[in-house]
């Protein structure tokens, strides 16, 4: 197991800021964000709706350009990192292609990255199993329920082996049982593969359960108001959520969030 190590930082943001220009003035979405994510870390981002979580992930992914400050991904610029296919991204909206069946949607990144036919089939099968969508391979997206679509889009991001996973509320539309199941699967995957994961969520228990670190953000302009290290062990059975340590961290996160809200 690798412990976070300053020489192998996956994400390093210094004084990061981003302002959107819109038809009626400018919106400051991020302001002076300093954050380092080490290799193998599982970092959750939590904060009120509209505080800039998605924006921050998009900057890492080179889908948005910061207007101030500096950011490095694997020691490179986000653009270089993107070109070296450093990460997988799960979007907040499923964004499946309506002209592809579910299995073909999941195979999309594999086709692009040049996996062999056989491997494509194997991986699609495996990841669809993982998200409990076996049996829906041949359906089209509009024939699936909202939660099923979201699971298909998670499968799509997991199908190829990126070392960094950027996940924007992947489990928002899922029920508790499936969510618990996927949480466990994700933790397992993370422990097994030493991936680095940046994870946006609105659920405090989920953030605490999954993360090594929880970043609490506050809105307008989006700032990091608190970074909470989790002392929980890496091995985490589901019922760890009833331990006092767990509840204590959850409490701290809730306090942090509430503080952000009262700023408004």
């Amino acid at each position: 197991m690798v412990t976070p190590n300053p020489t192998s930082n996956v994400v390093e943001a210094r004084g990061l800021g981003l302002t959107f220009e819109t038809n009626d003035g400018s919106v400051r979405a991020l302001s002076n964000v300093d954050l380092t994510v080490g290799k193998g870390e599982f970092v959750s981002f939590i904060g009120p709706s509209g505080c800039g979580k998605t924006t921050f992930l998009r900057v890492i992914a080179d889908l948005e350009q910061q207007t101030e400050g500096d950011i490095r991904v694997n020691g490179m610029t986000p653009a270089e990192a993107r070109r070296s296919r450093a990460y997988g991204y799960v979007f907040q909206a499923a964004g499946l292609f309506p002209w592809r069946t579910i299995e073909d949607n999941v195979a999309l990144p594999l086709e692009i990255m040049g996996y062999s036919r056989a491997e494509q089939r194997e991986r699609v099968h495996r990841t669809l199993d993982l998200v409990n969508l076996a049996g829906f391979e041949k359906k089209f997206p509009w024939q699936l329920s909202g939660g099923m679509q979201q699971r298909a889009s998670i499968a799509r991001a997991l199908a190829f082996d990126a070392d960094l996973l950027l996940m924007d509320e992947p489990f928002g539309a899922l029920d508790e049982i499936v969510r618990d199941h996927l949480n466990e699967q994700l933790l397992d995957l993370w422990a097994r593969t030493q991936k680095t994961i940046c994870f946006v969520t609105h659920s405090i228990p989920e953030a605490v359960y999954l993360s090594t670190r929880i970043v609490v953000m506050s809105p307008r302009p989006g700032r990091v108001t608190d970074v909470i290290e989790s002392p929980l062990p890496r091995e985490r059975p589901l019922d760890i959520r009833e331990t006092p340590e767990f509840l204590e961290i959850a409490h701290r996160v809730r306090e942090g969030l509430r503080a952000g809200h009262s700023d408004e």
Partner: protein
Amino acid sequence: MSLALTTAPAAPSLLHRLAAGKTLPVLIVLAALLALWYAFTVYLNAPWQVDAYERAGTTWTTADLVRDTMAQERPVMPAPHQVAAEIWKTTAGTRITSKRSLFHHAWVTLSSTLLGFLIGTVLGVLLAVGIVHNRAMDKSVMPWVIASQTIPILAIAPMIIVVLNAIGLSGLLPKALISTYLSFFPVVVGMVKGFRSPEVNQLDLMRTYNASGPQTFWKLRWPSALPYLFTSMKVAVAISLVGAIVGELPTGAVAGLGARLLAGSYYGQTVQIWSALFMAAALAALLVGVIGIGQRLVMARMGEKP
């Protein structure tokens, strides 16, 4: 406010500014096309010129050939400067009211183009509305609308003109109706697609409000179809111009760009044909451009992501 915030970047070089805009690319592509055109001029006119030399028994050099191919009186392909000179002569060099003014003829064509396009667009949209809202119309009319477009217009144009003449319609309207005949079709096809483009859940939303047909139309179908409308209109206005020109032929081809084209062709005045062609194309480009500007304005108002 945003002015104060953004400090102006170091003044870019003129070249840079040109390259970023449309001017330089258009100029370069234009230059390439001109070069190609000159090459074609020489190539296409050379056989006739060589023939002429031989008939006259003169000896000639390549330089002679190149020079003479670009100065023929009725070339297979006129040189760009010949066309330019003719256009200049018939526009700037002629009173606008004169029958020899290309502007005068352009105006004649433009007026029936616009009238035809207007009627065509309205008709096309109305038909599309009917087709989208009435199953009987969808099933029965659409195939015949399509069939109507496979009728060669030039063949029935004279009959249209004669029939309209018989019921007392003459002048601008018959010509415009031929434009209409051609231009309503792209609008129908595009708008039927556009009116049907709202997503299922958007239509469902309107259903939950128990929105009436007109409400669903104006608040959902129409805005969704606007991108299709503009694309269709661009095609329709270009076709409408063709229709206006075709419409001039059976009405005696007395005035308008079509008349110029035809007269040029009867008397073998290639240069005149080409200048009329260019005027027509310029007119169309202008019309398409105007619609494009309209499109951008409307789309911006509808909050399209730039």
